[in-house]
Each structure stands twice: as structure tokens, then as C-alpha cells.
């Protein structure tokens, strides 16, 4: 019985460290989302629409990320598409 308990205790050892790391990730994401302007999702979908009209990009080829800097906000747009090499 005691062995079993010790085993689980070892398994669970430092679960607080895991909790702390998970929280840091979650909270930085939450904070990022909070600072995003409300129009961002619409802007994103319109950008995707326009890009697709001109290129052969798939949804996964288009990456849009938002950054909030102290004085300015910024979006970073990364687009790639397959080239039609003859």
C-alpha cells in the first residue's frame, strides 16, 4: 500500500511546475486576445478572401498575426503559394 502511494507521489511530483507553465502560456494568450481590436476577425477574413482571389494560396498558407506594441499596433502577414513551374 505504502509503495503504491509512493509511486503515485513520484508520478505527481512537481505537478505545480506543470501548472505554472501551463498557466503562463494560457494567460499570455488570453492577454493577447484581450488587447486585440474587435474588427480583427473581419479584417482577417477579408484579407484571406482578397489573397485567395489573386494567388493559389490555401487557408494554411496565409498567416496573420497581431502584435500590440506600446505605441502602435501591427499585423504581420505571411503568404505563400505554389508556383506553377512549367
Amino acid at each position, binding site marked *: 500500500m505504502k509503495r503504491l502511494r509512493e509511486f503515485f507521489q513520484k508520478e505527481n*511530483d512537481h*505537478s505545480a511546475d506543470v501548472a*505554472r507553465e501551463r498557466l503562463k502560456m494560457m494567460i499570455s494568450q488570453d*492577454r493577447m486576445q484581450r488587447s486585440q481590436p474587435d474588427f480583427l476577425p473581419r479584417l482577417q477574413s477579408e484579407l484571406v478572401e482578397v489573397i485567395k482571389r489573386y494567388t493559389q494560396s490555401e487557408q494554411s498558407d496565409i498567416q496573420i498575426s497581431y502584435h500590440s506594441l506600446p505605441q502602435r499596433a501591427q499585423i504581420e502577414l505571411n503568404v505563400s503559394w505554389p508556383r506553377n513551374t512549367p
Partner: protein
Amino acid sequence: MARVVVVTSGKGGVGKTTSCASIGTALAMQGYRTVLIDFDVGLRNLDLVMGCERRVVYDLINVTTGEAKLSQALIKDKRLDGLYMLPASQTRDKDALTYEGVGEVIDALKEEFDFIICDSPAGIERGAILAMYYADEAIVVSNPEVSSVRDSDRIIGLLDSKTRRAEEGETVKAQLLITRYDPERVEHSDMMSMQDIEEILAIPVVGVIPESPAVLRASNQGIPVVHDTPSDAGQAYSDTVARFLGEEKPMRFVELERKGLFSRMFGGRR
């Protein structure tokens, strides 16, 4: 100047009502005229923790709608002079409480009291925002648990954006109250420490309340646990209020009590 303080958390069941009752009681013990407002519409229970449920006649909504005068709805604490509470309504219509109505009640209470303590409902929706809207300061209650700390961070975000002070370009001073803390589990790295949580949330800790059987005992009797002066939780709450009032106090009940050499060698139970 009256100070309006919201006790809030996001996550439910972390100890807001327990904390309100003891913080308000400790303030009144120090001679401050204090009123507690229960904002938990439909789930009122601050009156139960305060032990005055049988004297509830009118509630906050009755006052905002003019069905009752403020003086008729306020319940005087039976143990302490200068301590009052304003119960929540049992109605299921949560929208019955309005911003204007609450604002008028708080303005009237500011004339009479030093501290107005608002017991927030759980969640991050209208009820919680209404409870924090007029606050000058906040006590954010958190348990050392992932979901609770995350919700505390959300609540801090709302304090920074959805309160009247935020709308006026001012800040609501937020302090952290960690409850249900278990130093033994922290020692074994099974529970996040006070320092971990403080670092993540980046607001100062005003108190740490240990997990304690005294809390249930107190709520069973309808006596705020701070009246139980020998108990760990009672002492932790009175330290918390001393710090809240600006006193320097070292944290107690955050370190594991060292067992004697004998029990460490032979008793060895973790």
C-alpha cells in the same frame, strides 16, 4: 472618504463570500463603519455566512426600485456596532438590477460608511461587472489552481476596462487574496506557491488564507471565521485586513510547520 471595494474572482466557489464576511467583520472590529452588499442575485448567501438570514425582509433590488427605503433593507450585525449588510434578491430575473440603481444606492451608502464591500457573483458576465463597476479597489480571490488563477487574470482585465474608474481613465487598485492554501502540498510541489501566483498575476498579495476546517465550522454557525480568533484562518483574515489598512505584516501559515526531529525520523507520515 468612503472606499468601495469589490471582492471578485471569476471562478465560483473560491471563497469570495467567506472572505467578504470576515474582511467586513474585521474592519468593523477596528471601528470602521462597514456595509457588505451581496450582488449574487438569485443565489444570495452572504446573509447565511453572516448568520442574519432570518432577519432579511427587503433586498438590494427592492431598494433600487423604490419598494423599500435603504434604511429598511440594511440589516445591522448582531455582534458588532457599525457593521451592516444589504442582502441580494432571490429573484430569478438577474436584469432587475441596473447600473443606475446600484449607483444611487452606493452614493447613498458613501454618506454613512467608511467601507462598502461588494460580494461579487461568480463569472465574468453582467452580474460580476455590475458588482465591480463602482469599485475604487478590488480584492481578487484566487485558489492555487490553474482554472482559478486564469479566471483571476480575466477579472483583472475587466477591472482595467469595464469599471467606471477605467472609463474615466483611472485605475482600480487590485490586490490578491489567495485562499485554501495548503503549505504541505506547496512544499511537495503539488500546489502552486504564493510566489508563483503573485508572479503570474502581477498584483500584490494582500493575504493568504490556509485551507482550514475552521471555515466550514464558522459557516455552519453563521459566524464569520475571523471571530474564531484562535483559528489559523481567523488569524489569517485579521492579518489580511491589517495589511489592507496599510500595516506591514509578515505572511503566516504559508510555511509548513517543521515537525520535531523525533517525528521526522520515526513518524515520517507526509
